[in-house]
């Protein structure tokens, strides 16, 4: 083995490190460690001149191992590995000591920080001694993309990629694409009709030659990694023959069985066989098996739809025997755009949601003002009367330590939109209860200003309760909104016929399941975590999996669309490059030590090691494209035959040993 010559570089990171660590002393100390031939400190190691120090020392001093003590390797390990490579050194002969995030930013005593930095540098030096050059291999990227979620985010991402003539599988769990946006009436602040702007996009998605739409389907299993994911999708039974159905709607019209419509938020009914809404894509009905009398009676009752379907798309066979289908395909990248759930305000009992008929949520009211909705676009109470006064309550479940601390970002604006629409569509007085008015987007503040001239009563204060207990004549037969008006500094009671709760946007109830399916992380608030909040907002810690829209946190339609386009750009750049770099730090079997016991094969989640017979001897062999480098096999290997490259026992023991030494 050639002589190990280590170069150590201590970064000041401006004053981020140098302000609370004596960097010169750490560099001097590093110079005394075995095999260290050069030790320097520099203001910004990640800058070009900083990287040049490394490259020059490789060329001129012949160093063959590099240690940089700076920020987290999660931040700049790729930068310095590349610097090593540019200098002619294998990038894996590099080790980083994290003296910023794990030291200078979290402790403030300079003497202690300097000592800790020395410890971390010493450990890195002892470990880098054992580093070996690793070969970086490339693998092709499958150009197909999976998009999960057919709301505005998923549709936009799918269209952008498909317009580049790459195949997209768009999976939507509901019978139609459209997401929450298709339920909305008008969109703030321009008040353009949501359906009008969305349905052309939905039709594009439905007809696109490069989009395979899998509606009423859910992803069941994902394996593999960036460039080569394997996906298994469950296409749920619609109990009709999709190839024959022409979407005429006669079945739905004649079906006698009714229940609350999910799309209309329970404000209207749907049938047991139904097309969720008029512009649904695909325009196919779906049978609710729990409600269908024919299915429930095992073919003994009803069967009206069978008799009336001229296209013969509904038959006893489809209703009684159709099964879910499993569809399998391969993709190179995945875009997760699974959206949000509306917060359920019934968990705030004092607001009376679920108890009083005319306490509604935002999504209910969207359906009420929609011309195609259950009231034909008229603002009406449950009993059909026109309200004389309507209260709009902001921040229900948002900005509230008891529920969600975050701001849901869209409620102020849709609350204002409702106020405007109530004024436009009815004669009712409007009372808007807010904590702060957050109107930050394009045209938002102007919209707020415009509304303040429309005779709306703005009351700054959080609503304490909503009750039907009248204490004055005026309150009789009405709901009463009790709140503190913080500008007047007193409690007020406002009688209202209808109360709209601007309910928070929250993470989907099945976000945990989706997270484990795609190996995503979730923030404390339940939404999916981006790789970097500022600089990598649509990537995730899992390579090749991107996130768009409200699954990452509440946002409005323009932000969602922009983010969806960003994910499409990420997927397209992967496709355009065509290859990905495979993990080099993976398992390695020393065949001379391996007994072929198979413990590695048993523990591996990815089926990478396999015991095979080689010249009559049983040994384990690792499939390099399957191995993720998690290291579980090395822990259970009884003979020490398996090691993880770059994380060998020798290396880790050297590092731990160095950390427990005394300076």
């Amino acid at each position, binding site marked *: 083995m050639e002589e190990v010559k280590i170069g150590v570089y201590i970064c000041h990171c401006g004053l981020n490190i140098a302000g609370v660590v004596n960097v010169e002393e750490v560099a001097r100390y590093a110079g005394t460690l075995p095999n260290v031939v050069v030790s320097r400190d520099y203001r910004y190691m990640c800058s070009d001149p900083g990287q040049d120090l490394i490259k020059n020392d490789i060329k001129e001093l012949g160093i063959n191992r590099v240690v940089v003590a700076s920020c987290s390797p999660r931040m700049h390990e790729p930068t310095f590995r590349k610097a090593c490579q540019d200098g002619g050194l294998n990038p894996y002969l590099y080790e980083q000591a994290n003296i910023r995030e794990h030291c200078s930013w979290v402790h403030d005593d300079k003497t202690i920080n300097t000592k800790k930095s020395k410890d971390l540098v010493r450990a890195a030096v002892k470990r880098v001694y054992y580093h070996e050059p690793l070969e970086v291999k490339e693998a092709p990227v499958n150009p197909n993309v999976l998009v999960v979620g057919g709301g505005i985010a998923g549709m936009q991402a799918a269209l952008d990629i498909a317009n580049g003539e790459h195949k997209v599988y768009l999976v939507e769990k509901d019978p139609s694409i459209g997401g929450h946006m298709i339920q909305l009436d008008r969109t703030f602040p321009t008040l353009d009709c949501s359906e009008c702007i969305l349905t052309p996009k939905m039709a594009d998605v439905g007809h696109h030659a490069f989009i395979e739409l899998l509606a009423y389907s859910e992803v069941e299993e994902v394996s593999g990694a960036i460039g080569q994911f394997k996906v298994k999708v469950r296409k749920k039974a619609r109990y009709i023959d999709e190839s024959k159905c022409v979407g005429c709607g006669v079945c739905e019209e004649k079906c006698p069985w009714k229940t609350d419509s999910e799309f209309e938020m329970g404000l209207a009914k749907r049938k047991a066989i139904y097309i969720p809404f008029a512009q649904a894509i695909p325009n196919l009905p779906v049978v609710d098996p729990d409600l269908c009398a024919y299915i429930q009676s095992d073919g003994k009752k009803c069967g009206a739809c069978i008799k009336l379907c001229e296209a013969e798309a509904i038959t006893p066979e489809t209703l009684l025997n159709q099964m879910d289908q499993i569809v399998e395909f391969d993709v190179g990248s995945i875009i997760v755009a699974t959206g949000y759930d509306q917060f359920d305000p019934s968990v705030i009992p004092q607001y009376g949601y679920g108890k009083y008929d005319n306490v509604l949520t935002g999504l209910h009211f969207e359906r009420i003002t929609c011309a195609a909705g259950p009231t034909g676009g008229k603002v009406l109470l449950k009993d059909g009367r026109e309200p004389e006064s309507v209260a709009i309550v902001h921040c229900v479940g948002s900005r509230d330590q008891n529920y969600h601390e975050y701001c849901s970002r869209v409620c102020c604006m849709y609350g204002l939109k409702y106020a405007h629409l109530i004024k436009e569509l009815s004669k009712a007085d409007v009372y808007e209860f807010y904590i702060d008015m957050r109107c930050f987007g394009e045209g938002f503040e102007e919209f707020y200003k415009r509304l303040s001239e429309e005779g709306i009563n703005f009351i700054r204060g959080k609503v304490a309760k909503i009750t039907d207990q009248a204490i004055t004549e005026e309150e009789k037969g009405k709901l009463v909104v009790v709140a503190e008006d913080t500008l007047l500094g007193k409690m007020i009671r406002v009688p209202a016929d209808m109360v709209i709760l601007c309910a928070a946007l929250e993470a989907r109830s099945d976000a945990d399941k989706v997270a484990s399916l795609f190996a995503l992380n979730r923030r404390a608030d339940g939404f999916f975590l981006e790789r970097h909040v500022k600089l990598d907002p649509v990537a995730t810690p899992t390579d090749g999996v991107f996130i768009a829209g409200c699954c990452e946190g509440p946002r409005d339609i323009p932000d969602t669309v922009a983010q969806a386009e960003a994910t499409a750009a990420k997927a397209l750049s992967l496709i355009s490059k065509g290859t990905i770099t495979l993990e080099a730090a993976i398992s390695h079997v020393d065949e001379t030590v391996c007994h072929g016991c198979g413990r590695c094969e048993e523990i591996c989640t990815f089926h990478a090691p396999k015991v095979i017979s080689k010249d009559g001897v049983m040994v384990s062999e690792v499939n390099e494209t399957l191995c993720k480098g*998690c290291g579980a096999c090395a822990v259970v290997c009884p003979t020490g035959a398996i090691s993880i490259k770059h994380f060998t026992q020798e290396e880790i023991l050297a590092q731990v040993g160095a950390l427990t030494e005394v300076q």
Partner: protein
Amino acid sequence: MDEFEPQIIAFCCNWCTYAAADLAGTSRVHYPANVRIVRLMCSGMVDPMYVLKAFEGGADGVLVAGCHLVDCHYIDGPEKCDAMFAKLSKMMHVLGLEDERLRREMISTSEGTVFARVVKEFVDQLKKLGPSPFSSLRKEKVAV
């Protein structure tokens, strides 16, 4: 005499707890400087030998921390780590070490404050417990 400052070696998985410690850094959440982190790719990569090496070197406490069960980048690393940890915990008294010196935590990427709290709690706990019986070994060994 100086107050006893315990030394903690923390084995943290790259994807969750190491990142949580990074987040504590970027958020400037301060915690005691007694901990030294060893970055491993997965908590399932923690070999009992690494923990023993830390105790042998005189560490007063060892923290093994990684993803929550559902967050694992490698699907089920935490379960593998738990299995290893259960066996290791049983060995502590055989080694003449108190159980409290070995700690297992699951700390996700977003839990920078949790990481800081865990370190602080562990330091307080170890201060009450006093130095590891093997810490004299550390004093005899001088780093070069």
